[in-house]
């Protein structure tokens, strides 16, 4: 039970809003600098950590082997990888600073309880670019909470911040509701690290249109963007496009919120994908995971009812990562269509047309093999093998939102910009400002990089400001 009178009665040096990776990095840095720190985590304790709970790795620049990372991954290559996914939607200065700082973050993370392991089985070979957390993101979050606790940081759970009071460019305090009780908290500086708004479906629908009602939210249900909206309403400068969110295609039976990593479906390259009307709509063989993975969310979102169906046969059932829900299964294509709730006859027609367009070739499941269809629209340009060996399997697909891009604009010291220039004592870190660097697309492990780099900077800057 959180002691509200103590929270209200204390004059905090640094108030950290949010309880994920960025918030924890900020709190730890500020506490190590001697500041009296409180973390206001919106979720109840079992769900603490925001989307960091669901993450698993950290993309890290390094000039030679570093901890579990092999070889070298230098600034320019990292930046080129970022440019490729953002298509230029990035701030080069901030991006390069983030990349350079990532190198010193990894030892810092290890020194604060995070443990890394060699890259996981079933993933692409990421052992050069990405350091994986032993046990995943929740293990990282646990380690940071323990470190913060040891440093004397106070944590309030179920602490929903409603309004940040800013007067003439200065943070004065904030209004929160802690376990349902209204509460005023005052401090000398604030670090906003409360995530994006993807769990607010109404907000998504305003940006995306009604289709967003059918989106699934892969991460925490607690990222509702309340603080982001409050800041934007007060004139804080924003970056990113409100209509943009990062969506992947996940198992259509996944929970509405919080399904996390297990909802991924990795079988699209070996399949045909049809919509509700039993029609194909895109080249399933365009590219390998993870590029393919990131485009299918939008593709499915554009289909009627925001749903699609992956159809494979028994030749392909063992070629991809195990799925959390068993596939629908039938001995005939018609029967599979019925099980999936689409027209069996139409599915039969689509499969027949596809099979007739397949050409002989050498099938290589792990690389672009050039086994392409002929004379069919859309074409399948790789791994095009006939769907002809019973039993047949099918999964439904829905768009699964991972995060939003709209956020607060920050400078290289993580300070937030208001209507009259930079605020005196307001910093931001993590998803709430990630759009400053990642305006579009996604690079595996880069969200944790932004959160760690800016969380640490924000914590240090805030502590120095109040010292």
């Amino acid at each position, binding site marked *: 039970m959180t002691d509200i009178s103590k929270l209200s009665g204390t004059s905090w040096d640094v108030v950290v809003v949010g309880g994920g990776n960025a918030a924890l990095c900020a709190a730890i840095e500020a506490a190590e600098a001697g500041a009296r720190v409180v973390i206001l985590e919106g979720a109840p304790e079992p769900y603490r950590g925001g989307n960091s*709970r669901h993450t698993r790795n950290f993309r890290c620049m390094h000039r030679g082997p570093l901890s579990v990372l092999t070889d070298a991954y230098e600034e320019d290559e990292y930046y080129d990888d970022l440019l490729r996914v953002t298509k230029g939607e990035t701030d080069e200065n901030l991006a390069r600073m983030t990349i350079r700082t990532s190198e010193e973050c990894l030892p810092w993370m290890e020194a604060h309880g995070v*443990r890394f392991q060699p890259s996981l089985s079933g993933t692409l070979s990421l052992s050069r670019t990405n350091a994986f957390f032993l046990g*995943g993101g929740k293990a990282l979050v646990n380690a940071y909470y323990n470190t913060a606790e040891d440093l004397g940081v106070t944590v309030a759970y179920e602490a929903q911040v409603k309004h940040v009071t800013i007067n003439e460019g200065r943070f004065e305090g904030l209004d929160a509701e802690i376990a349902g009780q209204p509460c005023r908290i005052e401090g000398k500086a604030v670090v906003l690290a409360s995530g994006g708004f993807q769990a607010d479906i109404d907000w998504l629908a305003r940006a995306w249109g009604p289709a967003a009602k059918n989106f699934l939210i892969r991460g925490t249900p607690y990222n509702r963007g309340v603080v982001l909206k409050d800041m934007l309403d007060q004139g804080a400068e924003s970056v990113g496009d409100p209509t943009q969110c990062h969506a992947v295609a996940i198992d259509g039976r996944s929970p509405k919120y919080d399904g996390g990593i297990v909802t991924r479906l990795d079988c699209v390259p070996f399949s045909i994908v049809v919509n509700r009307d039993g029609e194909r709509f895109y080249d399933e063989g365009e590219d390998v995971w993870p590029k393919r993975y990131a485009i299918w969310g939008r593709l499915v979102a554009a289909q009627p009812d925001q749903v699609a169906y992956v159809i494979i046969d028994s030749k392909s059932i063992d070629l991809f990562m195990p*799925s959390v829900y068993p596939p629908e299964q039938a001995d005939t294509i018609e029967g599979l269509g019925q099980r999936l709730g689409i027209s069996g006859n139409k599915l039969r027609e689509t499969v027949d047309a596809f099979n007739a367009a397949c050409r002989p070739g050498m099938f290589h499941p792990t690389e672009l093999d050039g086994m392409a269809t002929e004379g069919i629209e859309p074409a399948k340009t790789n791994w095009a093998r006939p769907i002809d060996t019973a039993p047949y399997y099918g999964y439904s697909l829905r768009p699964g939102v991972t995060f939003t891009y709209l956020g607060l604009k920050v400078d290289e010291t993580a300070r937030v910009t208001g209507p009259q220039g930079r605020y005196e004592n307001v910093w931001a870190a993590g998803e709430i400002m990630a759009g400053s660097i990642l305006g579009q697309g996604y690079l595996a492990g880069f969200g944790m990089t932004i959160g760690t780099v800016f969380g640490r900077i924000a914590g240090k800057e805030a502590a120095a400001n109040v010292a």
Partner: protein
Amino acid sequence: MSLDLINEARRQIEICNACRYCEGYCSVFPAINRQRAFADGDVTQLANLCHNCRGCYYACQFTEPHEFALNLPKALAEVRAESWERFARPAPFAALFQRAGVAIGAVLVAGIAVLFLALQALRPENGEGFYAYLSHAAMVSIFAPAFIAPLAIVALGLRDYWREVGGTAIRLPHLRAALGDVARLKNLSGGQGQGCNFEKGDRFSNARRHAHQATLWGFLLCFASTSSGTILHYGFGMEAPYGFFSLPKLLGVPGGILLTLGCIGLAVLKTKADRDLGAPKLWGGEMAFVMLLGLTGFTGLLLYAATGTGAVPALLAIHLGTVLALFLLIPYSKMVHGFYRLAALIRDAQIRGAA
């Protein structure tokens, strides 16, 4: 076989296999990741491979209140305990003693009482040391069957286990790998030597690993002590009592100390850990067993300390009574975990070798 327990464990294992974040903690997850579908025997094997370190539970983003409600340490603990019951003969004994500390206590009291009666009824005309109270022949006639019969029952159970998990012929590399894991207690190391999440919530600690190895090595030293006595008796005609600088004492005294301290440690840790991450119904039985094991070491030390005093007959009865109870309960108590865990590690080495 309880299909409910197996199916629940299988449901959880399949979710783990889609996630794979816990791969680095212990041998269970690499074993899961090698497969896509899990037959009942596979679930039994995974359950016996699990050392209940709980690292996966505290790292899991899908534990309750999440709707996936993962609690793999508990699911596997329940399947594991159920498998020991199923492989025991007669099975109801295992059901009784695994679950009830009171039943274990009753066997202990009965064992002590039997030894007191034996001391009175079978007191020899002459003899030295312990044998002044109970002749060697009488001891052997009580303890040999009390040791051999339970081991035979365990052997039959292991044979059933080996069939169920699809084990093949055991070769030296399999044994070497498995014994290496046992010696280091690798599967409680957290994968990187930080230990497990047993008694301090999501913080790591090696306390359980150390207490467990003190218990294991203490027990083995005590066992070696008794064995060396047997060899001296039959092989060299050297009968008890033995002086301090004799094999039975040089092995037995440190063994008894390690066993006592290790069991105290395990019992204390057990009171601090979350019961719901194991098989909650077995908690009492497991605790009673740990205390019985510790008592065996402790009473042995007491008996040695009391050498030459008037307390020897009573302490002898109590010590031998605990030993008798411990032996009789081998097939039906937590003691069997050692046998099945070793079997699971050997099987795991076989599968890794074959892969």
